């Protein structure tokens, strides 16, 4: 299925992920954590199900258990003592804090995996470009260079192997020398090819005054709607943050603001924000389906 959310304008995506990742990092309140973790998992699964499941079960779940278990063993703060291990108290607060931090950490990692898939290199280049055009060109050239470099080093390695001077032929001393030689050949090649690239840039007028920066991203009506919706949802979340709806005290004893009508509203807004990619996809799906 097409991910319509990922097709939004890079600036909208950037704003969204920055907000969600920052909120996930700083809101340690269990309701907020649960929302972020759940939505982060769902969004990541919508992008690539298999990878998300593998990542969650092989890495996140073990990490969750380890952090929950280790924190109370190292940290003895907290008022409610559950048991003693080697004369050291294990507290309920430390246990919960370990669990919450692990949840926070998992949520952030899941959101970053979404970021990685959705904000591809060219979108990042574009975002840079709107701030500093020359930086974005540099970035784009680096992205061109890295795969070329990798391919060339393989070619050189094979060529050297072909005349009996590979990095895996001969004694350890000769191997090391051959390996160094391969790097040296690569360097000369890179410098020499750099001249051709520079020529090619100059031939196409690089260095003339008044260079512009082109991108294939246009800010369309859908981006505008998405941006407005996002900003509208950010307000209640910020309001909640200022009034302390998201605050939690772990030590010496747990303390949260009691759940009220206002706090429910803030939770709802935060949920809508975190589930935005999924809701957006669903909304577009319904809309386009109806119009056919």
């Amino acid at each position, binding site marked *: 299925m097409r991910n319509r959310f990922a097709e939004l304008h890079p600036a909208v995506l950037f704003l969204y992920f920055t907000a969600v990742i920052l909120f996930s990092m700083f809101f340690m309140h269990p309701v907020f954590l649960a929302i972020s973790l759940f939505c982060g998992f769902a969004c990541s699964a919508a992008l690539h199900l298999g990878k998300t499941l593998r990542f969650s079960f092989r890495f996140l779940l073990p990490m969750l258990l380890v952090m929950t278990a280790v924190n109370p063993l190292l940290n003895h703060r907290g008022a409610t003592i559950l048991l003693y291990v080697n004369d050291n108290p294990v507290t309920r607060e430390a246990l919960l804090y370990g669990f919450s931090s692990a949840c926070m950490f998992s949520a952030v990692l899941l959101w970053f995996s979404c970021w990685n898939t959705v904000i591809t290199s060219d979108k990042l280049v574009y975002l840079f470009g709107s701030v500093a055009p020359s930086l974005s060109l540099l970035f784009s050239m680096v992205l061109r260079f890295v795969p070329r470099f990798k391919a060339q080093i393989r070619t050189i390695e*094979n*060529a050297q192997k*072909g005349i009996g001077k590979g990095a895996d032929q001969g004694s350890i001393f000769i191997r090391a020398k051959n390996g160094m030689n391969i790097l040296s050949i690569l360097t*000369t090649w890179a410098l*020499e090819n750099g001249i051709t690239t520079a020529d090619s840039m100059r*031939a196409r007028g690089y260095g003339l005054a008044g260079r512009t920066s082109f991108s294939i991203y246009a800010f369309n009506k859908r981006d505008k709607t998405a941006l407005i919706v996002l900003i509208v949802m950010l307000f209640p979340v910020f309001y909640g943050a200022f009034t302390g709806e998201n605050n939690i005290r772990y030590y010496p004893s747990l303390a949260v603001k009691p759940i009220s009508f206002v706090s429910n509203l803030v939770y709802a807004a935060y949920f809508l924000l975190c589930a935005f990619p999924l809701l957006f996809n669903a909304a577009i799906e319904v809309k386009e389906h109806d119009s056919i």
Partner: protein
Amino acid sequence: MTVFEFDHFCFTYPKETEPALWDIRLTIPEGEFIALCGLSGSGKTTLLRQLKPALAPHGKSEGTLQFFGKPLAECSERSQAADIGFVMQSPEAQIVTDKVWHELSFGLESLGYDSQTIRLRTAEMASFFGIESWFERDVCTLSGGQKQLLNLASIMAMQPKALLLDEPTSQLDPIAAADFLAAVKKINAELGVTVLLTEQRLQEVFPLADRVIVLDRGRVITDASPREAGKHLLEIGHPMAAALPVPMKIHGAVANDLPCPLTVREGRNWLGAFLKESKIFYRAIPEEPESTNTDKAVELKGCWFSYEKAGPDVIKDLTLSIPKKKITCIVGGNGAGKSTALGIMAGIFKPARGKVKVNGRTALLPQDPQTLFLKNTVAEDWAETLDGRLSNAEKQKKLQETAELVQISPLLNRHPYDLSGGEQQRAALGKVLLTQPDILLLDEPTKGLDSSFKITFAKLLRELIGSGVTVVMVSHDIEFCAEYADYCALFFHGGIISSGGARAFFAGNSFYTTAANRMSRGFFQNAVRNGDVIALCNKNQNRKD
């Protein structure tokens, strides 16, 4: 309108006494397609670069060079960048950015166009070249031919009035090269852009060009239509004549008054007209007894190979034996696995299954000679491969001998990167030979060599065979293989489809064969080389007389 005009133009490189260009007088009218030819080092590239001031080499120039009636040096940098497009040899190194669309827009960004204009122009170019489907792709996922087409498209997006191309197809395989040249022809015919192209492969360019200019040691020796230029080169016996289209060469070597053919089709018509007069008595070249050599240098049995564990098999059930002290050529399309097979023989790749038996020491000359050079001079670079226990005198002797063999003695103290493409190839070959292999493996050795050095190169291979070396070569260059190989094998889809003695092999194929064979099919039975067709023509003619 005149686009470029040279008048008594001379150019000398710094610290050189001999001028690189001498008394050039040329007028290039708008809309012409001009092929600029000459051997390596004849000054083609120097001449072409004079026309693009941003790329012109340093040196002293005399005489005048005008662009649309105005001295080129006085044109603004902006108009030079936009109006004169320049495509270079290397498809890889010319590409600056990582995305196809960004590369297409690079020149327009430099010229400071707004987004709307750039969007329109890149879209236009992408549709003109039929490359819309790659528009958002990463550059590194394109093939060499696609990359060069992208380079051309990103120049054309700037809407130049003149397009200069410096051996643009020398790094491409024949099919990609033909596609590329067809795109250049389309630009010339449909947009009326003036084209100046330097090229080694005259076979493909001659039928496209309106005019051919031949340079020799910095002087213009011919400036005429392709037919006339070819005739002139044949008459004066210029080394460049070796690169002419096959039908032209055959026509020139047979006494007749018929008009000169350029393409295989015209060649067939010519042959028909020529032979009708004299009835065809001799249809076949007498078969030379095949000198069979049962000694095997390399034997592969049921080999399978893939680059990645889960990846597709590149080599599939390959069984192949290479006879000793012979030249064996492996031909075939791109990506068929030829180079990989060579890598297996060289021990670079280990097959997942199957047996590899190599009788002797191998050395592989890679496609890109630059991947071998390590030191600052050719001599130092070569010395590095020699056994450290040899005395200095012995080392020197070896170096000198090898330098004479590959004919680069005067260049031993130059930096390998300062040599031309053909010279680099020779320096790399010398380095490989110094490892004293019993089996010499060559990957596309004729790529970028000019036709006159190809003949020298073939002689060199013969000498090596004489001294007991086995040569295995992977190539796209069918003409070269037909002319000089003992055995040929056709590689397809990871295995050998057919193999045999060179003549029988090519005579048995219908498309994948030499121009001479395609031209004489139906008239003669097994004429594969140019010499075969010429000999049969002369024989038939003499009989009539």
